[in-house]
């Protein structure tokens, strides 16, 4: 080992470089707070390696992106963990970038001669946020797709060039294959190149001017080289942060159902570090939206960039720099407050629980013998393994007439549209949660009937038609006996009832089950 080192040194002279790197004298009293930059470097390395690993399995096309992510989660050894690391790691990078920025802010380390180091740092923060924004789209699930719709619509607000900018971001007139591919390219090629270049500049500048050190140096403390004293601090904090990241990452990363561009009912929520801005937009509707979406963030970034020139002089004590600190901290505090407000709002999307329609779909699939062909090694892939790229229209046509692989070649036979919708909903749900929930037998009977028949006119848990009243809390208005009589023959209860009677269509057991189920909904 020693001889190899000597041989290498004879050819490269690496020891002098290494010594220069490690023996950097640090100002006296450089403490734990000065480890944040190193932690950030470690986190970026984790992002780089996990990102590289993910590119081995990810496919950046709408047809396969979601399937490939699901494959990583379920079939690739350590796949779910690596995706969890990359997902949670992104949040860690944002948090530590902000902490690092705050540390520099409090120590006034951006002052002459370190203005450029600060400016490059602000650039790095923007690159990190661009990483977050582009990476968000890649899983191609509902969250990714609709979150990106919002991002692009915000870009569209830009005066004069908005429409052109949106088209450049989309790679076309709409969000689709070209968008995914170019965001992928930006995420894995362009941004890493910029990040590496800016990081090198940042570090070289940092070394050139030395670190600023504590504001008041302790006369008893003495200057010590970086290695091993401060390096040990860097390593210990990095290990601790990595341990927390690993613990969080072992949960994996979230994945919703596949992106469905036709499902405009989806309410997107951004990643937490954009939640504050997202909340701000709620208070600035209409033509004020541009203020929250572009003007405020733009001015804040400008303020950060110009800070070394706004807060000049040699004073480093925070008490002597109240205006400069307030200018940065106040907006950050408001952003933090907005983030908390948005965080506490319940997510608008219900959890991926099974709806009545999906349960009905399962029953229809059961009766129709879909699994004769959709079986392991059958004529067609299992239903839970269906590739995700069929549109709901395609699925509907295929359900109506299984031999139609290319809808439009011939007319589909008639199938009740309620049944088709139920099967489509079921197949989509299967990809998310392959196990039907455990339900009482009578509830199952009731939900099958409701999903096939009632939802054509009525709503239940936000799904269904609007001609009839919402059934979600019908039990608060009517008791079980009344409901049974009403469903069996509405006109017998009230002569001017508009609902058709179901007495002839449902069995007595089904009527009982539906009435019992609805009565407990209140």
């Amino acid at each position: 080992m020693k001889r190899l080192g000597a041989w290498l040194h004879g050819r490269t002279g690496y020891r002098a470089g290494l010594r220069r790197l490690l023996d950097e004298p640090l100002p006296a009293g450089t403490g734990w707070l000065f480890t944040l930059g190193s932690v950030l470097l470690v986190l970026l390395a984790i992002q780089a390696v996990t990102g590289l690993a993910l590119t081995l399995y990810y496919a950046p096309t709408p047809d396969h992106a979601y399937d490939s992510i699901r494959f990583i989660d379920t079939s690739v050894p350590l796949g779910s963990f690596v995706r969890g690391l990359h997902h949670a790691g992104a949040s860690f990078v944002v948090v530590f970038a902000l902490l690092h920025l705050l540390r520099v802010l409090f120590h006034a380390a951006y002052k002459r001669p370190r203005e450029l180091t600060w400016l490059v740092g602000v650039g790095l923060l923007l690159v990190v946020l661009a990483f977050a924004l582009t990476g968000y789209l890649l899983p191609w699930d509902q969250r990714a797709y609709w979150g990106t719709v919002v991002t692009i619509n915000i870009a569209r607000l830009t005066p004069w060039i908005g429409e052109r900018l949106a088209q450049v971001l989309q790679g076309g007139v709409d969000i689709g294959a070209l968008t995914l591919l170019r965001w992928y390219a930006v995420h894995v090629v362009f941004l890493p190149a910029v990040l590496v270049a800016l990081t090198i500049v940042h570090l070289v500048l940092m070394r050139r001017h030395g670190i600023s050190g504590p504001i008041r140096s302790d006369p008893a403390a003495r200057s010590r080289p970086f290695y091993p004293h401060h390096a040990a601090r860097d390593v210990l904090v990095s290990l601790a942060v990595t341990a927390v990241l690993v613990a969080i990452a072992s949960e994996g990363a979230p994945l919703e159902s596949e992106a469905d561009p036709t499902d405009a009912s989806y309410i997107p929520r951004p990643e937490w570090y954009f939640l504050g801005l997202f909340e701000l937009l709620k208070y600035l509707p209409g033509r004020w939206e541009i203020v929250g979406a572009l003007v405020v963030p733009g001015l804040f970034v400008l303020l950060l960039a110009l800070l070394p020139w706004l807060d000049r002089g040699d004073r480093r004590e925070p008490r002597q720099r109240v205006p400069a600190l307030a200018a940065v901290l106040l907006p950050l505090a408001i952003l933090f407050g907005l983030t908390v407000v948005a965080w506490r709002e319940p997510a608008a999307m219900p959890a991926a629980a099974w709806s009545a329609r999906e349960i009905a779909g399962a029953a229809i699939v059961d009766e129709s013998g879909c699994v004769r062909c959709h079986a392991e090694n059958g004529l067609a892939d299992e239903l839970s393994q269906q590739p995700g790229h069929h549109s709901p229209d395609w699925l509907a046509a295929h359900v109506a007439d299984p031999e139609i692989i290319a809808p439009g070649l011939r007319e589909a036979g008639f199938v009740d549209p309620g049944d088709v919708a139920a099967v489509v909903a079921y197949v989509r749900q299967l990809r998310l949660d392959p196990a039907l929930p455990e339900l009482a037998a009578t509830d199952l009977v009731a939900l099958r009937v409701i999903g096939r028949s009632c939802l054509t006119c009525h709503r239940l848990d936000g799904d269904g038609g609007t001609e009839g009243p919402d059934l979600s809390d019908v039990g608060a208005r009517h008791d079980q006996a009344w409901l049974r009589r009403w469903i069996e023959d509405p006109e017998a209860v009230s002569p001017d009832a508009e609902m058709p009677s179901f007495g002839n269509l449902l069995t007595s057991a089904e009527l009982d089950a539906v009435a019992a189920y609805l009565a407990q909904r209140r």
Partner: protein
Amino acid sequence: MERRAWLKAVVGGGVSVLAGGLAALLATFAVRTPVDERREEWRRVARLDELGDDPLPVTLSVPIVHGWHRTRAARTVYVQRDGDGVRALSAVCTHLGCLVGWNAASRTFECPCHGGSYDSRGAVVAGPPPRALDVLPARVDNPEDGDVLIRL
């Protein structure tokens, strides 16, 4: 310098843990490829009474699963009687993988690419093929119905 040596150990150990962990992660991803999902199974290809003197070509659509990509491939197999049982030969020429065809006049399988030729049992008669046509497991399911099954 007791303390200094200890600090050096912390730095060296910590950096090794972080770098080693990341390297191991990447290596696992690259080297431990996912389990092969291809499964062979018995597939019904014909009824016994459909088999005459000549080998019967049957084209099957076989599911191919490669990671997240699912597709189907056509596989051609020649099925023929063999005493009381049946024999199934892969139609893939053992030379360079072209599909052989049955020539009823000469009673040989002939490869259109380089003139390889096999007899009705798949043994090489002429040309460059290095070995006989591949034999696939085949059986008759139940004698009454006479379903011919092959494993593919």
